[in-house]
Structure formats: structure tokens, C-alpha cells
């Protein structure tokens, strides 16, 4: 008898839950939010507003709590933690999404080759000292060659060969190289074109120009193996059918170009100077390209001699 009553009560509570399932509830457990989309009951609302709201809130909260307690949990010292699913409703973000970090040249290479990153330990074991020493920095292992008091000097070394200096210079060069690469990576990440890429483009352009700068415009030049054909400009044509507005605009643009100042100048150059003689050209021709001043000097000094020679 006892058992049946307990079972009966259990059945009732279960029944309660399933009743709640049927309502128009929209749950978003990610944001701990429940929306009851049943239209507000006018009669109950008018009867007692606060009581109606509380009743409504209680039902919905029961639903939400039910959903939360049904979620998979992990234990914690404060009690079970319900693992929440990601929210379903879209909320505007506070700030835009973070930009992905630009990979360094090495990181790109490592990713392509599948090289895993490994953490280098800061200390290395020194066999001689029998203790752990820093890999770099104060009393670092990388300065060993500079600090040891005796050095092996190669037989063919110069008189002023300083093994300490050589080791130090090598180390400093490595540091400088690393710094240079870091700056290059930074410059690349910031998106500004680097010097090398500018230079590359310049060289390409020069090469393209020189290839067509021979007498045959590059036609009969010996080609190198693997040399590609120079790519010229691709001709582009406007579509044959255009809107009336576009057509009008292009026609007007053409007309204005026909009547432009530059064109007028080409038609009748130096219209203000009526003489047919181009003075500048004449001087250049007479002085054989040396200019008017040189011509005058020559005329002054060597009048007689010139005449006699002739």
C-alpha cells in the first residue's frame, strides 16, 4: 500500500512536468532565458496583475529550472555544475570579432611542413660545472666561448686573431638577424608593402621594358630557357549594349576631350608667336647642341681664326 501511494505521488509529479512541456515556451538555456509565448490572459490580468504575473513567472521558471536540471552536469565543491549549451538567440556583440593573428614566416612554414612547436627549456645541463645553467642571458651558456680563459687558435690564424671577438661577433650577428626577422614579420603583419617586394616589382617592370627595347622589339632575341612570354595589356571592350545614360556620358566625355586645351595646343603650337622660326631649335642646331651662351662666346673669341681656317 505504501509503495503504491509513493509511486502514485511520483506519477503525479511526472505528470506535472509533462503538462508544462506542452505550453508555448521557448527556452534558451545558454542565456538562462525562457519566453512564454502564450498571449496574456486579459481576465486573469485584470483581476490581479501582480498575482497573475507571479503565477506566470513561476510556471515558466519551473520549465527553465527543469531544463537546467536535465542538462549534463559535472561536480564541483559548490554543487553540481550544469553544462550549458551555446545560446540560441542572437545578441549583438559589444565589440567586433578579434582579427586573427598574422602568422610569422616560420609559423607558416611550420604549418605547411607539419612541424610541431616545442618548448625549449630555459636551463641546460653543464657537464663541466655539473649544474644547470641558463641557456642565454646572465652567465648564459651561449656566452661560454667568449668567457672561457683559454682558447684554441687555428694554426693559420692571423696575428691579431681574437677568438673571443669572433665568438662575440657571431652571437651578436645571430641576435641582429633574429631582430631583423621579427621586424620583417611585424611589417608584413601590418600590411605595409616591404622594401623587398617593392624592389621586386620594380625589377619586373624594368625587365619587361628591356625585353621589348631591342631593334626587333624582342622578336628575334635569343630566349632563355624557361623564359615566359611577356604579358602585355589585355584589351578590354565596353559592352555593345549600354544604357542611354551611360552612352550619353561617354559621348560627352569624348567631345570634351576633342575640344580640350591640350589638343588645341597640339593643333597650333605657340599661337602667340607669329614667326615661323623656332628660336630654341635654331640655336640648338647652330651651336651643335652646346647652347646659346657657348655659341656667343665662341663667336666672340674665335672670329678671325675661324674665318682663316675656313
Amino acid at each position: 500500500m505504501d509503495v503504491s501511494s509513493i509511486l502514485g505521488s511520483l506519477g503525479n509529479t511526472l505528470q506535472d512536468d509533462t503538462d508544462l512541456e506542452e505550453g508555448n515556451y521557448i527556452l534558451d538555456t545558454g542565456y538562462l532565458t525562457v519566453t512564454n509565448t502564450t498571449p496574456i490572459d486579459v481576465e486573469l490580468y485584470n483581476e490581479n496583475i501582480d498575482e497573475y504575473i507571479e503565477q506566470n513567472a513561476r510556471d515558466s521558471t519551473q520549465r527553465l529550472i527543469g531544463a537546467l536540471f536535465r542538462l549534463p552536469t559535472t561536480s564541483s565543491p559548490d554543487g553540481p555544475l550544469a553544462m550549458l549549451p551555446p545560446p540560441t538567440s542572437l545578441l549583438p556583440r559589444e565589440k567586433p570579432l578579434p582579427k586573427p593573428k598574422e602568422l610569422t614566416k616560420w609559423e607558416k612554414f611550420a604549418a605547411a611542413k607539419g612541424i610541431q612547436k616545442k618548448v625549449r627549456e630555459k636551463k641546460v645541463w653543464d657537464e663541466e660545472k655539473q649544474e644547470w645553467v641558463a641557456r642565454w642571458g646572465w652567465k648564459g651558456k651561449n656566452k661560454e666561448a667568449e668567457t672561457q680563459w683559454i682558447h684554441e687558435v687555428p694554426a693559420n690564424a692571423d696575428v691579431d686573431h681574437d677568438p673571443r671577438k669572433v665568438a662575440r661577433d657571431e652571437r651578436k650577428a645571430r641576435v641582429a638577424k633574429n631582430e631583423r626577422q621579427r621586424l620583417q614579420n611585424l611589417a608584413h603583419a601590418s600590411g605595409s608593402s616591404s622594401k623587398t617586394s617593392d624592389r621586386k616589382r620594380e625589377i619586373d617592370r624594368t625587365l619587361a621594358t628591356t625585353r621589348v627595347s631591342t631593334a626587333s622589339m624582342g622578336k628575334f632575341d635569343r630566349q632563355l630557357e624557361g623564359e615566359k612570354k611577356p604579358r602585355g595589356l589585355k584589351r578590354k571592350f565596353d559592352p555593345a549594349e549600354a544604357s542611354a545614360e551611360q552612352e550619353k556620358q561617354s559621348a560627352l566625355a569624348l567631345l570634351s576631350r576633342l575640344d580640350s586645351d591640350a589638343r588645341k595646343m597640339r593643333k597650333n603650337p605657340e599661337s602667340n608667336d607669329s614667326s615661323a622660326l623656332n628660336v630654341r631649335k635654331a640655336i640648338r642646331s647652330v651651336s651643335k647642341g652646346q647652347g646659346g651662351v657657348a655659341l656667343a662666346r665662341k663667336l666672340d673669341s674665335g672670329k678671325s681664326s675661324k674665318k682663316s681656317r675656313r
Partner: protein
Amino acid sequence: MLRTVKPRNARSKRAFVARQPKEVEDPRTCIFVKGTHTGEIVTQAMKELMALKRPNALAFNKKNEVRPFDTASTSETTLEFWSAKNDASLFLIGQSTKKRPNGLTFVRMFDGRVLDIIEFGVEKLVGMAEFKTPKCTPGNKPLLHFASDLFETHPRFIQLKSMLISFFNGETIESICLPGIEHVISITLSPTPTTLTTDVTDTNPEDLTSLPKVHIRAYTIKLKASGTRIPKVGLVPMGPSLDLVLRRHQAPDPDLLKQSLRRPKLKKQDVEKGVGKKRKNMEVDEMGDLRGRVHVGKQDLSKLQTRKMKGLKSRFDEEDVEEMDVDQEDVEGMDVDQEDTPLQTKKQRT
């Protein structure tokens, strides 16, 4: 605007990094601003809402001349400045004027710019202190309850719901401590007027009398044993209780909204968990190993490579086939499949 200075030491760098955009964002900080005149009701309403919003709340105690709806004024730049300075992306502005008494304005920002604005008028306010009941712990995450069908259908109320979730609870969390749930904030609308129920699009958006009131209530939750795993819920009014009417609003700029709704790409782990796009025939078993099912197409046994012998070469094939064809003509109702049977079987038969 604000100078952006490269951080020069570790502490300022940490502060700088904390303000940078994050994939999973922190809860929004709200600044409570008093307008040129705030009456007793508005001041108290702001205090009560601030108690719910704490610790992500900041109060400006001096009066400020801000009119967020007035585009001609410098209010928008002021708000943007405050937002950048305090790393806050929500504002609650209290302002009481003769034309619009007891006004509360929610302003939401995205990327340092104003996204959308909603203005309310406070009709009735009962503070927390007037309910002689236990209160929730400050900073506890509330549950939210919205009641009305308009929250799914009417644009004004969809915006309102989004704004209030942002205000009270707009933080993505992975887990929540179940015994730690303390209170629920309920937002209920008054019954939908008939003008709204007939046709939503037909109503004049500026006709504010047609819009239902908004009741905001807060309750503490008492969980009682029910005999099952899921406890029974009892609610105790905690306060504050606010009755609000909707006034002006500014809908979000579509471009800005689209930007603000961008989600991060799902991680591989999430996809495996089944959060993202569903991946067919793949599952992670209890040991955490990825297991897949491979479907092999139907095998064509006629193309099976059998033992290589001189006699089985294809040039010996043709005459046999001709013979077979002759044979088949004799036999009625021969199966079509059998024509393609491997050579060796034919040989045996002939």
C-alpha cells in the same frame, strides 16, 4: 577622441589587452547617467536597476546634458566618448521633462558606436526595500522570463527583449552552479491591444498608446524537493517592481547590426561535440576517440581481378562470347546478369 597610446609597461599592457575585442565577450558594463533633471522616481528606478546590474555597473553622479535621440546635439559623440573611456557598452539615462516625465533610456553600443536606443516612461515603481523579503546576492546571474507572444512577433518587443537580455544577462557562460541559482527577473507585457492583434504592420509605430505596458518584476527562487530530480519552484517577490511604458526608440542601423551579429567560426572541438554543423558518420566515443563509419559502395564482382593466366586473357575472350551468345539464344529467359559473368565460369560451361 581618446588618444591610443602604445602600452609601455606590463600593467598598462594587461589593461590594454583586457579592452581589446575578445571572441567570447565579458558581460556588458552599464553606465547609469543622470540627465539634466531627474525626479525622485527616476533616481530610485536607476538605483534599483543598478542594484540588479552590479558589479558591471558604473554610476555618473553628476547631471549631464545628454539627449540620445537628438541627432543634432553632440550627445552621440558624448556617449561614444564615455563608452571608450570606461570600456562600457550600455547606458541607462534617466531624464524627466515636462513632455516626457520619468524617462529611462537604454542605449546599446557596438564597436564604440550607438547601435540602438529604447526609451521608457516609469509609471509605477516599488523599490527593493519595500519588500520585506530576502534578497539575492549582488552579482548573481539571474534567470530571465519573458511573457507575451509579442516578444516573438512585434519588432519593438523583439528589440526590447534583446536589449534586456543584453542588460541583465548577455554573457555566454559554459556552466552554471545549479544550487547557486537565486533569482529570476520577469518581464511581462500587459494584454495585447486589439489594434495590435489584428495586424501588426498596419499600426502606426509612433502611436504609443497602442503598445502594451511592460512589467518588470524580480523574484527570489525557492527550490523545494519534489521527489524527482527536478525540484519544485517557489517564487518570493524580491523587488524592484517597475511598470514601464514604451516611448521613442531608434532601431539599429542594419549594416551595424549585421556586423555586430557576426559569430566566431566554430572550433573543431565544438563541431565534434555536435554544436556546429553536423558531421555525418562521425562520433566521439566515451574514450574520446573519433570513430567513423565508412560506407562502401556495392561491389562489382565482374571486375574482380582473379588469377592471371594466359588462357584467361581477353583475346581468347571473343570467340567464347560468340559461342555463349549462340547458346543463350537457345535458352529462353536467361538472366541479363549472367551475360557479364566472369570468363572462367563461361569456360567451364562451354
